[in-house]
């Protein structure tokens, strides 16, 4: 049976699309047949992060309108043939599609793909409802910040009310040095507050921006950056492997290390 997983957060800009692109690519690399679905109608981004923006011919809306077949709308990745993108329409609003239609699309995808990742838009309105309509699992993406955690909590409640029981947490943009300095909530803090199982922690990493510039997900890098490694770990846990959390701890600097650093030693 296919896994249908929605990536959602409530708050915008916390890394849903980044996670979808990297997890999709990592799962495909691991031999899974993966479809990533952009459910952010009107503000599509997933194509950019995957570097597939120039290959879009049809979108999900065209499929629903009967203007093309589903396989014609799917953009197959050349680097990784196991991965396909179902693009959202860019010039239409989030109301352009209904939950029932989303279910039909996803249902059709399950015939071919064994992982379907749905990139949800921010918010809890129609776009969000569409993106969770067909999902059986959810990955909550949050950052260790007050508004993101609050919104995540709200979304977890909504998922529960919509009978999505397998809800797991990815904490993105963690800054270990700030945690060590007690200026950011730790992984344990955030997980304790949200009280859902932890799927992974992604450090804040400049390479994320470099990779989006190029349209190449981090997990394709030959030498994985910290965030790239973290995404690979998450993808392995999603497949049921037991992978320990990356050690992101930074020891509090001792007096002597500060002294040495100060004098350039």
């Amino acid at each position, binding site marked *: 049976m296919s896994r249908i997983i929605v990536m959602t957060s409530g708050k915008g800009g916390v890394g849903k699309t980044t996670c979808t692109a990297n997890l999709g690519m990592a799962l495909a690399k691991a031999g899974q047949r993966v479809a990533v679905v952009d459910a952010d109608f009107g503000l599509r981004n997933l194509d950019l992060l995957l570097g597939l923006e120039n290959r879009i011919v049809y979108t999900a809306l065209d499929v629903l309108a009967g203007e093309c077949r589903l396989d014609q709308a799917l953009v197959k990745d050349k680097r990784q043939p196991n991965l396909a993108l179902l693009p959202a329409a860019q010039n239409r609003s989030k109301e352009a599609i209904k939950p029932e239609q989303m279910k039909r699309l996803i249902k059709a995808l399950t015939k071919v793909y064994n992982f379907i990742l749905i990139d949800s838009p921010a918010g809890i309105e129609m776009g969000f409802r569409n993106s969770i309509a067909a999902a059986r699992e959810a990955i909550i993406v949050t950052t260790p*910040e*007050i508004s993101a*955690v*609050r919104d995540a*909590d*709200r979304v*977890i*409640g*909504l998922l*529960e*009310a919509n009978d999505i*029981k*397998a*809800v*797991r947490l990815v904490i993105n943009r963690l800054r270990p040095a700030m*945690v060590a300095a*007690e*200026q*950011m*909530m*730790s*992984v*344990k*803090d955030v*997980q*304790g*507050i*949200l*009280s*859902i*199982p*932890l*799927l*992974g922690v992604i450090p804040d990493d400049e390479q994320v921006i470099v990779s989006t510039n190029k349209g190449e997900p981090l997990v394709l890098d030959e030498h994985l950056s910290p965030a790239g490694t973290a995404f690979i770990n998450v993808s392995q*846990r*999603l497949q*049921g492997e*037991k*992978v*320990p*959390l990356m050690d992101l701890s930074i020891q509090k*600097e001792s*007096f002597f290390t*500060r*002294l040495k650093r*100060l004098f350039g030693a």
Partner: protein
Amino acid sequence: MAIPIISDLLERLFGSSEDPHSRDDVKRRLQIVLAHDRLALDPQTMEMMRQEIIAVVSRYVEVDFDSLEFSLATNQRVTALTANLPIKRIRPLGRGPDQPIHADDEVKRIELASPTEASALDAKEAEAALRKFEENCRDEPELIHSPLDIDRSDLPDLIDGAGDALHPPEEIEASEKESNLLDQAERIHSDEPPFRKDGSDSDALNVPDMSIPDATAKATSRPKRNSK
């Protein structure tokens, strides 16, 4: 000129002197904000509950209105309503705690305010009103049973459903018994959501193959959240 440089040097050597630890602030704030979010009680309802609790408690003891405190906090699985009601003295009342007050009497005797008035009520006004009430009580003990100006025309069930006013809804357990009633605070805990009692263990998530061996805090269950 030299002093800032030296203090900067010292700070870099010894770390920031004040060490504000905003991490603790954010955790504290989140606990409160999530407790409210998860309960999904609007401020008016919250205020009404507050006044009713005070009214009930005031029948038996004289509460110090200047220093009472109500707060909601959530911790792991349980949301708790904490009421701190410092007590000045016990009221010499005919009615003891095990003599029920008829719920209908209660509702009829409470004067109503319009919803706009109710929402305009800010904390100061509420306190002033309560202080006035307290004074009235002192002059005329019978007034104790017509305590507060609350409009509950919109919310008949809340009160009627509570039944015997002396026995608070099951979910709210007052622990007044352990007290000697003097100068002590009462803690009232409730499972949330407030007017429903169901095991919060029942929504335990079980996703066996997704666990991370090294994750220290592995939650298997969590509180009900607002799903509105």
